[in-house]
């Protein structure tokens, strides 16, 4: 770490994992890291959260896979990737070698796949945390997304927890597309999640006015970017309010330091930046700088003081 934070304690932690800065990449928005290394030093940000990897290599969804929407975008990548073996043998060593902290995101189609992935990850040294993306369709249960129901969400996390004894923190990543996100959050925490990642994309669709059919090859896609920021802030605020002791990795539409601060005040201990990097490859270091000065300007001495500040009553606060 070469950054001087002027005496300000910018470090954060998600359960037992510590990071020098709270600004991370978002899963699926930095590929395996190499591509962004052209634009900034990966060791100077909090961590690289890698694209959700599955057990086997995967082609993903047909193109078109993207549509721009007002202040947002839809994607339907469908978890394309090289599979966990290739990933652990190639991408992780490269990142660790660059001095980057690595959070590995995993995704499964079955409860069992999550356990298999966890077992393979446990065998590798140097990984800071596992992010368990349970916002993917469960092939065992009518294609329902794991994170849409308390029981499937809990079982997926439980499968990972049983393998990962406590060496590496487990971060459960939830979808906002549920009736009551706090109940899903508490079910995964009960099942052994050490932290929560909020939020994955919001399900959306765009109709192409030329073909007059759904624009995306996969028909529906995930909405990300500033459009969904108010949804992310709400989800983080609700969950932090219900479980203030559980650390949250917040994400959803963060494109500037002020956006990051909003999510932190709502209760996030760390921030993943996704879509913003598509529009600005140097968004992550910029957001990190901007957040740092906004925190200083508000008289905070450390990032930790700001986490969840919006929950204090006005009297308490000042």
């Amino acid at each position: 770490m070469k950054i001087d934070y002027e005496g300000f304690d910018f470090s954060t932690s998600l359960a037992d994992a510590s990071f020098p800065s709270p600004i991370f990449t978002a899963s699926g928005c930095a590929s395996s890291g190499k591509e962004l290394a052209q634009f900034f030093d990966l060791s100077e940000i909090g961590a690289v959260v890698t694209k959700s990897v599955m057990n086997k290599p995967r082609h993903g969804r047909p193109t078109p896979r993207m549509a721009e929407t007002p202040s947002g975008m839809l994607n339907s990548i469908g978890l394309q990737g090289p599979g966990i073996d290739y990933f652990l043998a190639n991408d992780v060593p490269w990142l660790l070698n660059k001095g980057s902290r690595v959070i590995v995101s995993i995704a499964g189609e079955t409860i069992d796949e999550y356990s298999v992935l966890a077992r393979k990850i446990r065998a590798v040294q140097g990984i800071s945390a596992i992010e368990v993306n349970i916002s993917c369709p469960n092939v065992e249960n009518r294609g329902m997304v794991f994170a849409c129901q308390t029981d499937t969400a809990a079982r997926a996390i439980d499968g990972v927890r049983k393998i990962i004894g406590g060496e590496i923190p487990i971060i459960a990543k939830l979808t906002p597309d549920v009736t009551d996100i706090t109940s899903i959050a508490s079910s995964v925490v009960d099942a052994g999640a050490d932290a929560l990642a909020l939020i994955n994309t919001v399900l959306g669709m765009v109709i192409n006015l030329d073909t007059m059919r759904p624009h995306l090859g996969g028909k529906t896609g995930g909405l990300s970017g500033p459009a969904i920021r108010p949804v992310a802030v709400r989800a983080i605020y609700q969950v932090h309010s219900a479980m203030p002791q559980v650390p949250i990795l917040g994400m959803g539409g963060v494109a500037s330091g002020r956006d990051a601060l909003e999510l932190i005040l709502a209760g996030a201990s760390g921030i993943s930046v996704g879509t913003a990097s598509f529009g600005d490859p140097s968004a992550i270091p910029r957001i990190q700088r901007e957040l740092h000065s906004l925190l200083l300007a508000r008289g905070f001495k450390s990032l930790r003081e700001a986490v969840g500040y919006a929950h204090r009553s006005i009297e308490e606060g000042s």
Partner: protein
Amino acid sequence: MSTINKSATQISSTILSNKRIGAYHQILLSIGDLASLCRPGNFVAIAVGDESSKMILRRAFAISRITHGSASGGAMELIVAPHGSGSRWICAQPEGSDIDIVAPLGKAFGIPTSPVNALLVGGGYGSAPLFGLAEVLKARGCRVDMLLGASTGSKIYAPLEGKRSASTLKIYTEDGSMGERGRVTAPISALIQRGTIDVIYSCGPMSMLRAISDLTEGTDVVHQCAVEESMACGIGICMTCVLPVKGEDGTISMLRSCIDGPVMDSSTVAWDLVGKTPPAVTL
């Protein structure tokens, strides 16, 4: 430093000129030292809209030509079709305004080491990068023939200076308003038969690239095409721009056209699978 896009840099670039040419805008950007790193086939990703814009993604444009100025440094020419809100925004920017660009991006056209006979085929604004390519090929001693096509004459981009870099230039329009009536792919078959072409370089709509690919299949003619898939990032981090590409062992991979393209060897592209889900990966 990364090995991917290793020359790519994000800079603020000044618009030196912005002129309407037919249906397009010819835009000249001051890019200083970056000029020496740009090769025909590379593209640039441009941030569109001001800080209050609802457009959050960059737009990709082929680098049409590079000029190496003296005092003011190098410049990059783009040929932009006002298509939707982002490209219209770019076309509306006045001379002197600054825009945020990332360049050079993507794989360039492969240049033969010995002189060959090259046919360059451009559809619509797809002709833009071909003139810079023609100059490079000519400098290597290649013979360069050019075919340009579009729906109508205003969509043919063929600058006077550019024409000089090709030995022959033929124009096709679907409505017959310029050159011959018909598709640019019409004469290619005969040219291949005649055996005077070694390599085809193409840039234009996917349907045109695919049609040329069908014609070169089974022949000795190498076909390098610059593909155009919807791109969210342009730098390899989003996986939206993929194309099904056959490996040596016949397996299909979904490669990112922004970093493994836009220029691809057309014989490796699984054209029938574009826009479809390839068969499940088997190991």
